[in-house]
């Protein structure tokens, strides 16, 4: 009995972002989805720094709000997603631009965006120890949250198994 959800009109800021991305970046990126308040695009690792500079200079996203990662064991890939937000631009405050790039899980190397967005520092360190991703160009990629005596594989990988009492299950 449920009616299909009504088609939601994209607000003007998101339309402008999509137009600008399509005209300036072209083949470098692919738009995964565009919803109100959130746009996700994907790119390759060698274009990541260019896309971040474009988001900072042309689209006026002035901070890196978060860096997240996902393990895809079937594809043998790890997806690292940068979330860009804005504080100064009043129209962009509600919008998050997510830039995803996939790397093979055998050699997970992503260029660090710390020169473009200094606020990516701690987020990249967290992803480095939770997923084992190596951010090339990061000056201080050391232990942040895990215990000092951690010797297991990074715990957010799907291959991680709990030690101790639950081992027999």
């Amino acid at each position, binding site marked *: 009995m449920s009616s299909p959800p009504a088609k939601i009109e994209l607000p003007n800021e998101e339309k402008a972002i999509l137009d600008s991305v399509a005209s300036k970046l072209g083949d470098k990126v692919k738009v995964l989805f565009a919803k109100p308040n959130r746009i996700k695009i994907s790119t390759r690792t060698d274009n990541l720094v260019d896309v971040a500079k474009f988001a900072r200079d042309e689209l006026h996203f002035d901070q890196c709000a978060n860096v997240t990662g996902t393990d895809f064991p079937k594809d043998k890939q790890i997806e690292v997603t940068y979330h860009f937000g804005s504080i100064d631009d009043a129209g962009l405050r509600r919008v998050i631009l997510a830039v995803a790039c996939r790397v093979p899980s055998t050699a997970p190397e992503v260029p660090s965006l710390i020169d473009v967005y200094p606020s990516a520092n701690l987020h990249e360190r967290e992803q480095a120890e939770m997923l084992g991703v190596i951010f090339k160009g990061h000056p201080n990629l050391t232990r942040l949250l*895990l*215990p000092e*005596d951690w010797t297991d594989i990074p715990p957010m990988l799907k291959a991680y198994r*709990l030690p101790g*009492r*639950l081992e027999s299950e």
Partner: protein
Amino acid sequence: MTEQVAAKKGPAAARDGPGLNVLVGTVKNVIREALTDPVTYLANWGRLYSLWPVHLETACCSIEFGAVSGPRFDCERYGILEAFGSLRQCDLVVVHGTVTRKMAPRLRWIYDQMPEPKYCIAMGACSITGGVYFDSYNVLPGVDQVVPVDVYVPGCPPRPEELIDAFLLLQDKIRKQSIR
């Protein structure tokens, strides 16, 4: 002069054979038998009503402990008073909830600094089995992997009455223990 007398008496007493030693040993046993019960009672009575918990708060169960320490439930009437001064004055550690793997060596470190005799209460589901975080990579599945636990208090979090009941159980345990 007295030292010389004592030096002469010492080896002489040893040469007297086993008879004197047996007598001395029997007297010692009699005195020990006579004194063990009252000394044990006195020592346990002293420990019983001066349980001072460590001020160590790891998770949200510490709110309930604050309620227990407060005027409404008032565990001080049983002699339980949080010691803020030093770990050397404490003889009880109440583990308030979740203990992460990073916190576990610190908890053992605190436990090792306390003087004997010392007791431990595991408060809340998280400190007993890990609680809702039982399959987390970073939470200890039971604090008894790190420190020996005397009383377990289940609940998420336990009511203040349950924690007071745990204190009374621990006092029962101390009342029945023997000293050496």
